[in-house]
């Protein structure tokens, strides 16, 4: 056999192998737009590997929530970056009434509102949607069951445009309204969803990669690991109306690639740029960079069940030794804001006080007071980049060197975030560096987990059982007077600052790269944007 015959054979073998699997790729492959689509479609480059489901009762990951937010409407919403005032959405008005044993929250629906299918939106849809969340009981369901403490029977339609929801007196009505602004409060088209039900799944198989809502956009298709296309919903009754006919979310995991695509004009907005890419984009023609606020906090938890972290002076020494300015200015270069209390800037109850900054002498004397000279601890760190775009490992190395200055030896142990959380939740960490984002935009969403041991969240993970501060936190959540509530949170955050088991390092900001013709982009600290407001 000669070479030519050999190469033909190889080709045949390869072809035969190629025909083996397949036939199913692009099962969701609805044809994409063509022709002039590029001009009227926003191209959004992002790492969407966290995308699991587009179902608002299931989605609890950044990408899923971003998309569901744009495909569904909620009863109430926050507008833009202002997370202090709840505004009308599907509900044109609401009323909170103290009925003795419960809080009764009554919502009046906007008249004439329609789903993308053309079906009218009724109170029954709201009841179905909320009961569906409880029935499916997926990741975000705790917002209903634990925070709002509602049950199936708490949600009632009293007429086609009125919904009454009863909360127990232990739940905060303000907190509940904040919960309803999140995607879990989305209203689904119950008629259509019921038609898509199979095997008692409440339509969750269908809604995993489709939408049945009334938001500004509808999901056109989701090609797994590749892209999601949204198309403008002509029935959308909210405002603003979608300026562009489509939004194409491309999965591009590599930041450098996002940067290149933005400069070349292939991408309109790049979502996951690191400090390096942002620096490279400065001064480039046709491109602008901007930042969005986030409600996350990056902190080090200090497990007080591990000696000598049980000693408040040791914890204060560790906090005092850290060079926060260096982290914010040199490491993150603007990708982070110096915040040291447990409530992030942007929420009511944020405490501006930042008393710590690399005071080696003070930290050493605190250690002396604690009777500690040689301390060795393990610092648990996730893999990959920290919020703000610097590698967790680099941040850990910075802390390690800061603490070395006061004679504290820290061994860095890096694991996946999933592994780290396993250890942390089991109260088995020593020092654990991780991020926290509130589950709903209310100070209680941070103060509760950070102070209440019984909530089995952050305070528990660090073995910090301070019953007085936990009780103060629970009381503050229920205060309805804004000024009194702010004062209560000031008191709590001041105390935690010096007595808690935390060193809050920074509050990240989100960097974005935009083509300079992109207008109307605003990032909400809720970790989403309204695509409808964006034009180009």
């Amino acid at each position, binding site marked *: 056999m000669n070479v030519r015959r050999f190469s033909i*054979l190889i080709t045949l073998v390869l*072809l035969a192998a190629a025909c083996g699997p397949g036939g199913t790729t692009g*099962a969701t492959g609805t044809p994409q737009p063509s022709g002039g689509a*590029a001009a009227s479609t926003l191209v959004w480059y992002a790492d969407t590997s966290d995308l699991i489901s587009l179902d608002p009762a299931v989605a609890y990951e950044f990408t899923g929530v971003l998309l569901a937010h744009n495909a569904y409407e909620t009863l109430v919403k926050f507008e833009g970056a202002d997370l202090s005032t709840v505004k009308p959405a599907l509900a044109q008005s609401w009323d909170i009434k103290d009925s003795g044993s419960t809080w009764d929250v009554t919502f009046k629906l906007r008249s004439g509102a329609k789903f993308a299918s053309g079906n009218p939106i009724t109170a029954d849809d709201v009841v179905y949607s909320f009961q569906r969340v409880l029935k499916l009981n997926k*990741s975000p369901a*705790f917002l209903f069951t634990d925070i709002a403490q509602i049950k199936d029977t708490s949600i009632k339609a009293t007429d086609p445009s009125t919904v009454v929801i009863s909360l127990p007196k232990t739940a905060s009505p303000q907190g509940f309204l904040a919960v309803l602004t999140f995607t879990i409060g989305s209203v689904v088209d119950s008629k259509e969803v019921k038609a898509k039900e199979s095997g008692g799944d409440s339509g969750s198989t269908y809604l995993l990669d489709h939408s049945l809502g009334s938001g500004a956009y509808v999901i056109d298709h989701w090609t797994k690991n590749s892209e999601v296309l949204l198309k403008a919903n002509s029935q959308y009754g909210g405002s603003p109306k979608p300026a562009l006919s489509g939004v194409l979310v491309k999965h591009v*995991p590599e930041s450098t*690639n996002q940067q290149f695509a933005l400069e070349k004009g292939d991408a309109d907005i790049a979502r996951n740029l690191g400090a390096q890419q942002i620096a490279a984009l400065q001064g480039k023609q046709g491109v602008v960079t901007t930042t969005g606020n986030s409600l996350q906090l990056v902190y080090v938890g200090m497990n007080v069940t591990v000696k000598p972290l049980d000693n408040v002076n040791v914890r204060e020494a560790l906090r005092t030794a850290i060079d926060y300015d260096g982290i914010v200015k040199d490491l993150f270069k603007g990708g982070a804001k110096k915040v040291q209390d447990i409530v992030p800037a942007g929420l009511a109850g944020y405490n501006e006080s930042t008393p710590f900054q690399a005071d080696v002498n003070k930290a050493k004397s605190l250690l002396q007071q604690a009777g500690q000279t040689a301390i060795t601890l393990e610092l648990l760190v996730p893999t990959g980049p920290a919020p703000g775009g610097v590698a967790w490992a680099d941040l850990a190395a910075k802390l390690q060197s800061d603490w070395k200055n006061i004679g504290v030896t820290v061994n860095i142990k890096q694991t996946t975030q*999933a592994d780290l959380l396993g250890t942390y939740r089991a109260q088995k960490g020593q020092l654990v560096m991780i991020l926290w984002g509130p589950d709903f935009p209310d100070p209680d969403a941070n103060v509760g987990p950070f102070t209440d041991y019984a909530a089995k969240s952050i305070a528990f993970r660090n073995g910090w059982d301070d019953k007085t501060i936990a009780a103060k936190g629970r009381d503050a959540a229920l205060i309805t007077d804004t000024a009194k509530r702010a004062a209560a949170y000031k008191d709590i955050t001041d105390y935690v600052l010096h007595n808690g088991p935390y060193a809050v390092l920074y509050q990240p900001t989100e960097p974005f790269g935009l083509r300079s013709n992109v207008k109307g982009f605003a990032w909400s600290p809720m970790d989403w944007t309204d695509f409808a407001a964006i034009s180009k």
Partner: protein
Amino acid sequence: MRFLGFLLRRVVGIAAVMIGVSVITFAISHLIPADPVAAALGDHATESQIAQFRAEYRLDRPLPEQYVIYVTGILHGDLGKSIRTRRSVAQDLADSFPATLELSFAALAIAILVGIPAGVWSAVFRGRLPDHVVRVASLVGGSIPVFWLGLILIGLGYYQLGWFPGGGRLDLFVAPPPSRTGLYVIDSVLSGDLEALRSSLAHLVLPALTLGYFSTAVIARMTRSSMLEVLGQDYIRTARAKGLHERLVVSRHGLRNALIPTVTIIGLTFGSLLSGAVLTETIFSWPGLGRYATASAVSLDFPAVLGVTLLAAVVYPVANLAVDIAYYWLDPRTQHG
């Protein structure tokens, strides 16, 4: 008949490998001290959610029972449900594997079409300039990190020159061809979709070069050394003595014999291409198996990891089988042996 018997033995062998692999990976996935429940349900899992999850994925059953359920499922073509994507693993693999397969074939094609001629050229001009060029290029190819090479190629081919697209399998607004094999190049040929064909070929160039450079280097070096050995044989001297043209000596008498070890390398290379595609896929936003495997492993998605492992366990022996079949045709001695 002899060939059929040979084929049958190999298929039985593949089945045995798969049973072994399934036992081992299943055992490992349950022995490592990590909790998939915590990874899947996140920060706020309530007791009832955890119980519901454990029941849904049958993590509440005894381990042997879990294995029996798993194997029974596989025999029915059911690889279980992914914890991360909440879809059937078989569906996930069917979505992502063709992309990796297409990329690997393209990389292999480059490796063969460039590697073999380069190796022959290098051997024929031993010690002279062409030989030095090939040897240096293959040394670089063997030692350059894939991630770096990928970024360089994107930076040059996409960002600077703008000759090639920067990532993905198709241009932004080009629809994928109707799916028959999941390989866009083949599907677009089958459906006569020239736009998709052009786009998918253009998108293959940079990632295939990135992925294929290492294999090209290996194949070139292998071909060179076996060519050198063959060209020193008596029958080559005889062929030359007969007055045969040098080109025929090299191609007909030399290369055919020198190819046998190269084919072995090609088979091994193909397996490593599939598994080595992870980084290339990340850089080029290629929606393939490598990224699926990484994401699954990081989120402790054991059903998915098991599915990928089983698939790999099939691919390696199949690649070897292809090599053996190639031997069978290439080397008449194996047909009688």
